[in-house]
């Protein structure tokens, strides 16, 4: 029985590092290859030993697909391809291919050089890994090999994020990666056609949440920044080089323009110039509004946002600074934080999630006295705000996508078990499809019905037509024929054609039956009695008495013979072909009742 198997190595009932193995019609695909930023040892990567056990990686896996550039989806890729040894193709969209190395490089620097971690990939490895990438366009069907094909759909979430349909023959799986069903400042909403996959693997970060309007959060953000700047304070926004940073930049840029504000806004790192460059380059991936206004003015060419110099941090007066890295791990954002933390007029806004072991995590959990190096204590007097701008579909959005794609089954990943449980029930109730939520390491197996294409010979169809029934597209009809397999193709042909093509002779298959009659007369006389009886009963059939003494009715042959042991009993040997099966059965039952007494 063909089946689809799915095993999450990461993102199974957690929001850690996405890595999902899918086996479909004998093809093995890895969906995402993420990293967990909360660990600084091998636990940060998915445990690939479960794949390497099956032999050489490149032979086992047909391809790797990356949904978007966030590190929890692509962070382990250079490790997997350059250190574990995967040498096959990696598919992602063009913006993801362009932006991935920036974030990987960003994180490599933090991990290896600042924290001194060993066993981490190098810049050269990132480059070599990116050379294995095959870029895909939206809605373009890419043939991985003769049987396996993939197709990307727009996912919103971040620039270049895509959902992927994986298809082998008539079996298909859709993997959403992270997606957003509502457009935001710079990106559009996710969309997929009614592709009716066997399985939809969807993220479920906000499985139980109906999120408030993003506009409210944006207003709140602008209000807080504005108030701080108005009272002469400084605002620090720690960000990763790409993604949320651009969204917030557009927000502030338009607000500054509208309010005619003069306080400077800075971006702290050279990396972001490249990031903005990519946003300009991939305008078609942004939302309709940006695309429309692009001709008059590119939204990513910021008038108010300038490059940051380290000396600016000490300048008096209000300012807003975007600085990397996003969790206040180290580097510039942390350095600026230390300078500004002591002043209650200042504010730090954390626009995303922070893992334990970072200063970001500490201040978000309300700690205000931070121990620094050398037993120094940093007192945090500045205001600390958390604002989630992460762009995931909420419960409503997930249901909307399921409705849009009409899958046969749904599998939830990238979420918390309890919330998944709730959503699972909702999906099962509303759509009447099975919903699964495997933990990491658990395999879900779905049987699929294979669809085998069969060609039908024109002769056979014509013969059916000749029988007078016109075909009706809406009504299935029974068609008899012989299925032959030649050169790995199936064809339905008439039995005569099959015999001819295969060079075979037809065998006659006859059914036989013995009927015992109590009759003391000779065999010939019994045969005559049988003939007369049938002749009288079967008026519409051709009943013949042959010279050799046997009786025929159509293809049915009846012979009378003496019983070897009992002279008072005659045995009628009845035989017929399968074409006359009905008549044969009728005759035997008729004869079993006995012959009428001679008058």
């Amino acid at each position, binding site marked *: 029985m063909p089946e689809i198997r799915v095993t999450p190595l990461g993102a199974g009932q*957690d929001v*850690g590092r996405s890595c999902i193995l899918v086996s479909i019609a004998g093809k093995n695909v890895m969906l995402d290859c993420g990293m*967990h930023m*909360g*660990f600084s040892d091998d*636990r940060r990567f998915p445990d690939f030993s*479960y794949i390497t056990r099956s*032999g*050489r990686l*490149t*032979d086992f896996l047909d391809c790797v697909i990356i949904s978007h550039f966030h590190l*929890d989806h692509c962070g382990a890729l250079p490790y997997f391809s350059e250190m574990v040894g995967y*040498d096959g193709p990696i598919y992602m969209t063009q913006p993801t291919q362009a932006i991935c190395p920036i974030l990987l*490089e960003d994180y490599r*620097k933090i991990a290896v*050089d*600042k*924290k*001194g*971690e060993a066993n981490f990939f190098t*810049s050269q490895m990132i*480059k070599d890994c*990116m*050379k294995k990438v095959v870029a895909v366009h939206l809605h373009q069907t890419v043939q991985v*090999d003769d*049987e396996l094909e993939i197709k990307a759909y727009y996912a919103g979430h971040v620039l270049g994020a895509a959902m992927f349909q994986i298809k082998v023959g008539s079996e298909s799986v859709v993997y959403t990666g*992270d997606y957003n069903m509502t457009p935001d400042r710079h990106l559009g909403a996710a969309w997929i056609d009614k592709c009716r996959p066997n399985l939809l693997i969807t993220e479920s*970060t906000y499985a139980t949440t109906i999120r408030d309007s993003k506009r409210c959060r944006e207003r709140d953000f602008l209000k807080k920044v504005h108030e701080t700047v108005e009272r002469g304070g400084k605002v620090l926004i720690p960000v990763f080089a790409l*993604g949320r940073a651009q969204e917030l930049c557009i927000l502030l840029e338009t607000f500054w323009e509208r309010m005619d504000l003069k306080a400077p806004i800075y971006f702290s790192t*050279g*990396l972001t110039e*490249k990031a903005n460059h990519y946003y300009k380059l991939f305008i078609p991936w942004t939302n309709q509004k940006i695309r429309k206004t692009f001709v008059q003015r590119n939204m990513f060419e910021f008038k108010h946002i300038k490059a940051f110099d380290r*000396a600016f*941090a*000490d300048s008096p007066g209000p300012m807003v600074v975007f600085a990397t890295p996003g969790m206040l*791990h*180290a*580097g510039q954002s*942390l*350095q600026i934080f230390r300078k500004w933390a002591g002043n209650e007029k200042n504010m730090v806004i954390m626009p995303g*999630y922070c*893992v*334990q*072991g970072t*200063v970001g*995590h*500490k201040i*978000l*959990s*309300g*700690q205000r006295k931070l*121990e620094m*190096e050398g037993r120094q204590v940093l007192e945090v007097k500045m205001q600390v705000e*958390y604002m*989630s701008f*992460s762009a995931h579909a909420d419960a409503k959005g997930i249901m909307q996508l399921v409705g849009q794609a009409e899958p046969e089954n749904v599998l939830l990943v*990238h979420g918390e078990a309890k919330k998944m449980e709730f959503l699972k029930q909702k999906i099962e109730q509303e759509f009447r499809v099975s919903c699964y939520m495997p*933990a*990491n*390491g658990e395999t879900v197996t779905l049987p699929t019905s294979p669809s085998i294409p069969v060609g039908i010979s024109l002769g056979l169809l014509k013969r059916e037509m000749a029988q007078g029934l016109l075909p009706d597209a809406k009504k299935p009809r029974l068609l008899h024929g012989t299925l032959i397999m030649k050169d790995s193709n199936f064809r339905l042909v008439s039995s005569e054609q099959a015999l001819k093509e295969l060079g075979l002779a037809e065998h006659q298959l006859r059914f036989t039956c013995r009927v015992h009659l109590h009759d003391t007369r000779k065999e010939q006389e019994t045969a005559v009695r049988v003939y007369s009886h049938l002749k009288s009963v079967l008026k519409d059939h051709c009943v013949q008495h042959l010279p050799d003494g046997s009786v025929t009715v159509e293809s049915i042959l009846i012979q009378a013979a003496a019983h070897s042991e009992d002279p008072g009993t005659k045995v009628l040997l009845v035989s017929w072909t399968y074409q006359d099966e009905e008549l044969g059965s009728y005759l035997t039952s008729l004869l079993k009742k006995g012959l009428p007494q001679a008058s």
Partner: protein
Amino acid sequence: MDPECSRLLPALCAVLADPRQPVADDTCLEKLLDWFTAVTEAGSSLLLLQENPCLVELLFHVLKSQDLSSRILSFSLRLAGIFAAQENCFQYLQGELLPMLFGEVGPLGGAAWTAPAVRSGWIQGLRTLAQHPSALHFLAACGAVDTIFSLQGDPSLFVASAAGQLLVHILDLAMRGPAEGRRSLQACDWPACAQKIVGHIEDSLCSTAIPQVTQALSVLTTAFGHCHGLWTQGLWVRLSPLVARLLEKDPVPASHSLVDLLLSVARSAPSSDRGLWETLAQTLSHLSPTQAGPLALGILKLQDCPQVLRTQAFGILLQPLACVLEAAAQAPGPPGLLEGAAGDSMTVDTLLSSKSACVGLLCCALAHLGLLQPLPQRPSPWPQAPLLGAAVTILRLCSGSAAPTSDVGGRLCAILVGCGRVQRAALDFLGALSQGTGPQELVTQVFSVLLEYLVSPESSSMVLKKAFQATLRWLLSSPKTPGCCDLDPHTQLFLTELLPVLQKRLCSPCWEVRDSGLEFLTQMTRHWGGQAGFRQALLASEVPELTKQLLRDPESYVRASAVTATGQLSSWGLCASPECPGAQQESLLVELLHILSTDSEGFPRRAVMQVFTEWLRDGHADVAEDAERFVAGVLQAASRDLDWEVRAQGLELALVFLEQLLGQRGSHCPYAEALPETAPPGVLAQALQVLCRVQLFEFAFRALFDCDRPVAQKSCDLLLFLRAKAAPCGGPQEAGDSPNVASVEATLQRWQAGEQGQPLGYLEPGAVVALLRSVDLEGLRDTLAESSDHVEKSPQSLLQDMLAAVGVLGENEADCY
């Protein structure tokens, strides 16, 4: 345990035991367990529990609580295992707690058991706990072994695999110990626990259910791979007949696991075991060509192994290539890969059965032979020539340039044409074969097929990359003409054909191809920059000019590779046209400096710094002309750079300059005193003057307080080196009390505090020496040696974070990037 941690622990235990308080971050519990492992490894667990009764209370509480999360339950099981790993602590917990946690009455029988995290925690807890004989009795008493048996078939891969490993661990623990030496190989006098496990393995091996056979085989593989006691021999004696019986089945069940097991046994068994070799030979002949490949490779990697078996194994690896050679042969030629044996029918069947089977078998064979090639124990004689022929043939079949006349050849051609996977594998293999020699005719064919791939518009970027790599390997291994240091005529001829192709590839619209071309050029120049033939061919081409143009490539990776390539070309004088060498070189230096100061991305700037450092180290003519001006210019640009790797590379360059002025650093031998010798006073004074003029100190002192740790570390090392060179001798008149020094010290303090706006100003050599003495460089070095987040990573910080997260979780939970 740190007193502060001890103080925080009761509160934390209370939080963990409270089902209303979800745990902040899924990594926290893992980190907490790491910490407890470290604490118990350093001291007594019993003492730890006695001093911190909250820990035992937590474990009791977990058992009583009905609505705890599976994560906390799993954590508690693992925690108990960590404590009970020490025998006296085990005794302490054994009475009540351990049976309740790990026995039938515990989570094992409850609803929580459905969560894979709990089952995993149960196994991991037992795995950690099972370190002493008392643990074995406990396992037997609570019936744990039967549960582990059933967990081998768990729906979670992680749980199932951990269960198998735990069985091996228990088996090893039972068999080790004082009685091990006296224990006979007869299993009947083995401990009861071991007998039970072995009995279970025997049953599984006889089972008709393949998953059970697989489980048994993988347990045995782990046992032979990880346990080295004498008992493993006895185990093999007992089980080998059952394993051999698997081979009688058709198809052989769980073949992959069987191969793993046999190789694991072969690696651990004494070489005199004839039975084992026979089983291996039998397995080789029973398995399909695809299944047998990994086994054949494994056998050939073994140190001691009968020659007959090696020949059989090598035959299996060669078989697919032999078939290809035979199918593609135009006419009866020289003997093929396998003397006498024409393509084995099973291999031919596999090759022709489907595209995926053919591609899979060929890729495996090529990869296996490629791995074997460099090994000292590879088969001898090594059929270098037929292998080369096979690799070339496969590549030609893939490119469609082969015209086989046989039916099989034609079908292979149809299957392989345009197949990128086989192309990549064959190019890797061809590159590996460059380590051996071959008849000139074949080598010519190798170069010709490589050129064909480099030229072909059909070649994908990955195929081109591999073609470049294979070409490089063949070029570098090509023989030198005897008595002449120049390239041999064939190579020379090839170069003239290759360079126009490279030229074309450098103009490819695909950045990956341009980059691979540049990497190839850099490597070739590094090795052959001095060869007249290479120089002549290169200068006659447009490659140097194109390389220079790529300094302005839109893709930063390509710009960086172009910087490295032009740097290398320039080092060998290959950038300049013969007419006016000076002008070209000068412009390159200026251009690279321009990239350093203006390129918006880090990679090209980093590459420039590497080229400059190399130039300075190797005494590049244009640098040597006015090294002082050069260093001053570069340091000025590097000091302003936003990319810390550029700044760190700037310090590397500064160090090279220092060494040139003052002499090498001391030995790096860890056992030797690493202090450099001091410089003579005259040299030192002069050197310090130069260093002050190039503003090296401004750069180094600023870097000392850089927010990026590696920069500060490097600067600290540099200044320590300088101080050691300068300090003992009086050197220039020290100016410790001068106003200049005082103001500089004040500035440095501000820098340390994070205010780096103010410049240091011009420094006198005397002031520098005084400063070097006054700054606590050793102290700084020690501080910098710790990772930049060591405070946040400390156990105390972890406990504080977990406590602080209580209550604020609702707002921030489950968000992500």
